[in-house]
């Protein structure tokens, strides 16, 4: 009792001078203090580095590699030299995102609507278990599974001979679905779980078949979750280079791989910076278009990420 009271008094003393400000919200000072960690984080770790990348992208490659100050558009004009890498990434990343969403949706649906309530959290947590092992280890494991002594040798036993999976775009797709599924399931799960089930009951009462009530109610209302999950997966895939390097064996060339080569092998930093800026621009444009499209479908204008 006395302990609680003294705490209350202490709190009152501290809050005292700001009592007046409370009616109209917190004092600007407190607000500034509260957002300053995030603001400093974004200024120093996002905006400043991005500014450096933009400045470098107008520079020239120093004779021994690296950056030499200059002002030229040559790096941007040279972007078509990496056109194939952009094309590969812009084909495989959306495709992998789509497949991941298609695989993840029934899983999330089952978890949110069909699984017994007391199992739900445990099952959801199990989706994340693969993250407990290092990504590199898991990709090395997939190299073995997809290598000629893995799945192809089992398929050979049932008559499908000479199937090559590892070091093909298919291997990258399989790896992407495996690797990014745990990011796709939770957002869809959350949006399905929030779903007001009375709507489905009402639809059934009004004579809707399960399929039409799914198409007209469940799917549109869960699209924000699909959109969030897709964005998470798509953004990470666009910049990925380990996955194509490991499961694509260097034969599946993503923008991420082009960037690694430009910064670490040929050491053409300014061109690498220009490619990075182009990648950021393409991602930004894709995301804006995609979100508008998906949210338009779901009839909602705004959605919080995650």
């Amino acid at each position, binding site marked *: 009792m006395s302990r609680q009271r003294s705490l209350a008094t202490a709190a009152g003393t501290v809050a005292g001078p700001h009592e007046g400000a409370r009616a109209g919200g917190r004092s600007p000072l407190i607000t500034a203090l509260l957002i300053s960690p995030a603001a400093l984080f974004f200024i120093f770790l996002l905006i400043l580095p991005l500014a450096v990348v933009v400045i470098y992208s107008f520079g020239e*490659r120093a*004779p*021994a*590699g*690296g950056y030499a100050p200059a002002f030229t558009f040559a790096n941007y004009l040279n972007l078509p*030299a*990496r056109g*194939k*890498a952009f094309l*590969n990434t812009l084909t495989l990343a959306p495709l992998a995102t789509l497949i991941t969403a298609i695989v993840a949706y029934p899983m999330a649906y089952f978890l949110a609507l069909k699984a017994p309530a007391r199992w739900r959290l445990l099952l959801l947590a199990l989706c994340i278990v693969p993250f407990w092992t290092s990504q590199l280890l898991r990709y*090395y494991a997939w*190299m*073995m599974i997809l*290598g*000629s*002594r893995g799945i192809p040798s089992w398929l050979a036993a049932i008559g499908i001979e000479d199937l*090559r999976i*590892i*070091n093909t775009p298919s291997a990258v797709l399989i790896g992407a679905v495996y690797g990014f599924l745990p990011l796709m399931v939770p957002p869809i799960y959350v949006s399905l779980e929030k779903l007001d089930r009375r709507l489905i009951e009402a639809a059934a009462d009004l004579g809707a078949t399960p399929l039409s009530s799914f198409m007209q109610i469940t799917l549109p209302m869960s699209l924000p979750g699909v959109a969030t999950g897709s964005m998470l997966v798509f953004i990470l895939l666009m910049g990925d280079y380990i996955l194509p*390097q490991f499961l694509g*064996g*260097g*034969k599946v*060339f993503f923008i991420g*791989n*082009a960037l690694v*080569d*430009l910064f*670490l*092998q*040929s*050491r*053409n930093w300014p061109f690498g910076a220009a490619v990075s800026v182009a990648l950021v621009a393409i991602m930004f444009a894709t995301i804006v278009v995609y979100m508008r499209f998906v949210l338009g479908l779901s009839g909602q204008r705004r959605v919080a990420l995650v």
Partner: protein
Amino acid sequence: MTRKHWENRPISAKEFMRELRRLEKGSVSRRHFLAVTGLATATATLAGGMPWLKPRRAFAAGLSGTVNLTTWPNYHSQQNLDDFAAKTGVKVNMSVFGSNEEMLAKLQAGSTGWDVFVPTNYTISTYQQLGLIEPLELAKLPNYDAAAQDKRFTAEGTINGTVYAVPKDWGTTGYVINTKKVTQNPTSWKDFWELAQGPLSGRVMVHDYQLTTIGNALKQFGYSFNSNDEKELGDAEKLLIAVKPHLFGINSDYQPSMRNGDAWMSVCWTGDATQLHRDLPEMQYVIGREGGEIWTDYYAVPKGAPNREAAYALIDYLLTPDINAKEVKAHGYPSTDQRANALLPKETLENPILYPAKELLSNLEFGAAQTLTNPLRAEIMARFKAA
């Protein structure tokens, strides 16, 4: 000094206690006690196992702290580094890198704190031009003997008569074949590229490294490994693009794929071939008849090395012939130093992977600085990978 007959006989517990009492009472000297109980021998034996208790060598005078060694993975005998620490009191702090380009980038950025690093031949002139390495004071390397080295190796570390780097070991870039699968007995780069597009389609790997991949494609046409000629590079690019759909992978980490049987032939460095052959005797190493690459890694001291004296002491130590021979046993690359080679077992010296026939070596070329930094080569490699 003659040995007393009881010195080698173990002492009983009872006798030990009696001697201890005698020592306590002062009736015998401590020396007598240690000798008669065997403790003197024991101490000497233990001290032998703890070399830091031994008196230090003259060159160790005045050394302290740590020495930062920047090198490649699996490239030193840990025992040697520990012994160096024991002898000099200077702890060796080792960090490893994946490519020369990363090393260069790091040194260019400055403040590395490196004392000794291990650059490859074709980067030394770049380091020298950028003023990143210092001329070596050979007087501080009494165990280095240029006369025991092949001129080919020392020349790459010497710029305008000044020694900037001393050779450590060397190797070649050829290709490894799994002879259980590859029965065509290839001997040249022409064979390599033809097999890759024919019977070995889908089973061949090349490095994810323009220097060796483009260089060995150039050899198909008999051009120099180091060619920077646009027409010749164009021919190499055409060959690479034609081979691309037949390749199993473009990856410098080719050991896993060779070991599990996915790949049957791969461009390969000496050390990987040694390791593959040691575990799987069917793995054989081929140096293309037309030539290809020979390379050497060096010890060099960056400008502004924080523990310069210890850096020289470490290089000198590692170049001591018997220590260097132990290094070779650990990393599996041939030493450049004939004195160290003389101390190696016969089977090492007769291993054709490590010490290829002289006539094969004469066609090999050292990679040049310009070969590594040529932007056109980088673009060709990018087009090849994206194709």
